[in-house]
């Protein structure tokens, strides 16, 4: 281990009853990196972070923060970390300033140090206008910022942020991401999310977990290239065909597209126009555009749009975590704006609370 490794997890396993939430997770985060920790809900992101912050103990394996084992000296580990738990749970009956003062007191900052770091936090997290408000009166976006501020009070070198952008509206998300980028300039950040566009924006490296295992770890470019497939977006009119011929049914269309040599699989995308929108995955370095066009002409189908994309991170994510329980629920991961995202976040919260509370309960839940 080099001196620059800030977070080191090796063979972390965590069981809740008979459920294995983490299955030998290993990774390292080096100094100055901003790492996205990705995975479907229930994949073990929060559990890993709770182990790193000494809230939970691993069943086996070791976790070290700045070379300090979480078992040996949990207090020292926590002193080195700033942590923002999921949904930024704050004492809602307190005023923002009092809350920050409380955290500073617990962290043992003296009055002068507190004043100084409060100034910089107000600036970095944009808290000036809410400093004297009750936390219960704040919007979720501001609570998240206060949570972020709280994690930064003691100027830690390492930040662990658990879904800092869940439940935020798009503007707030953009804001928080901007703060994280700002903060990440001179710190090590481990950031969990299931929103991929954020990772692309804020992180250079991603770790993808699924079912308690690391399925991909590396720079975004590398991960993107990993599955190596190419994506085609095909839009076909579902009402009328070419020169009097009939329009295809969706099953017909997908079958025909998957029949093309080099096409791996297809997927229907949601749309509110009267069209079929299909995503076709093709083999690496393939170019099926000509074949798709010829197919359309031969069948007399009216193609409205055809686009070839290098594999997006979304698609990589889907490929890597396919078969995960969360996927079986049919949740869409790519559409930021749809409601599924929020529902998914809620569900995740519930799952996590159960994990923390009672092993048997979560066991039942998973079984069900």
């Amino acid at each position: 281990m080099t001196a620059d490794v800030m977070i080191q997890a090796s063979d972390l396993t965590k069981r809740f009853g008979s459920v294995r939430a983490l299955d030998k997770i290993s990774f390292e985060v080096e100094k100055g990196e901003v790492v996205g920790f990705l995975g479907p809900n229930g994949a073990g992101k929060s559990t890993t972070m709770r182990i790193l912050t000494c809230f939970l103990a691993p069943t086996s394996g070791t976790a070290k923060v700045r070379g300090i084992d979480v078992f040996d000296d949990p207090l020292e580990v926590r002193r080195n970390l700033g942590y923002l738990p999921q949904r930024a749970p704050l004492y809602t009956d307190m005023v923002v300033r009092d809350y920050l003062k409380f955290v500073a007191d617990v962290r043992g900052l003296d009055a002068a140090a507190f004043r100084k770091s409060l100034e910089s936090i107000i600036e970095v997290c944009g808290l000036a206008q809410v400093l004297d408000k009750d936390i219960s009166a704040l919007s979720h976006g501001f609570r998240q910022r206060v949570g972020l501020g709280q994690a930064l009070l003691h100027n830690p070198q390492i930040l662990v942020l658990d879904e800092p952008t869940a439940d935020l509206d798009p503007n707030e998300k953009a804001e928080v991401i901007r703060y994280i980028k700002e903060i990440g300039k001179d710190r090590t950040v481990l950031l969990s999310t299931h929103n991929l566009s954020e990772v692309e924006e804020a992180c250079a490296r991603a770790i993808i977990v699924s079912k308690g295992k690391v399925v991909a770890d590396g720079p975004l470019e590398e991960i993107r290239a990993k599955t190596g497939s190419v994506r085609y977006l095909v839009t076909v009119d579902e009402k009328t065909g070419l020169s009097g011929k009939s329009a295809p049914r969706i099953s017909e269309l997908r079958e025909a597209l998957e029949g093309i040599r080099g096409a791996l699989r297809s997927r229907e995308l949601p749309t509110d126009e009267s069209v079929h929108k299909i995503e076709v995955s093709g083999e690496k370095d393939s170019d099926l555009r000509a074949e798709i066009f010829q197919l359309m002409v031969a069948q007399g189908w009216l193609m409205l749009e055809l686009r070839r994309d290098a594999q997006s991170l979304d698609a990589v994510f889907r490929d890597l975590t396919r078969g995960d329980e969360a996927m079986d629920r049919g949740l869409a991961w790519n559409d930021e704006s749809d409601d599924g995202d929020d529902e998914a976040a809620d569900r995740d919260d519930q799952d996590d609370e159960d994990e923390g509370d009672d092993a048997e309960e979560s066991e039942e839940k998973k079984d069900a």
Partner: protein
Amino acid sequence: MNTLLTIAKREFRAYFDSPLAYVVICLSFFGLGLMFFMYQGGYWQIDRATLQPLFEFIPAGLAMLVVPVVTMRLMAEERRSGTLEMLITLPVKDSDVIMGKYLGALGLVLTVIGASLAYPILMFKFPWTLGPMDMGPVISGYVGLLLYSAAAVAVGLLISSLADSQAVSFFITFFVLGAFWFSGSMADQMDGTLANVLHYVSFQSRMTGFMRGLIDTRDVVFFLSITILALVVSFRSLERRKWA
């Protein structure tokens, strides 16, 4: 400042940031006054310069209302809202969290008890002097109250750290403390070993000595043991989250 005291201070202040502290203090004094002066003729009927009824009503009131209300949120609410994770991932020891919360809640209960000092002072010192007052039993009575509330708050904290919600915590604490209080009266109606056991664990029979001006080491040890036991189990139940 010391972490433990910081947590205790926040906990104590939190009661006053919400209406809870004011409601508890006002209503318990209204109730106490009503019982003390009106219930079955009250103080006037006894026709002696004594505060003994005070030491019967206060612990019963504490057991039935004040302690369950004050302790119900301590751990149950923190766990439910997730703030426990925020608190514990600060560099604090689990024992500091338990002790801090305990002292914060005990602080509020002692505020209520401290305010009841108005009774002996106003009635027998200034402005009224309603008779020659023997201060001995009053002092020992307050020592008893202190020990009693230390034990009751610890039991409340323990139940709050085991319960899933504030409401559940409230009712169980209410029931347990009520049972501990009235088991003495129940024992009087029975005989045999069960009666002895009930009598032995009853908070009420433990308090009678203090009311009469008698500070018995056995009673002191009894209350202190309950306190320590409840705190240790609360601490363990907080630690248990790590391994669950």
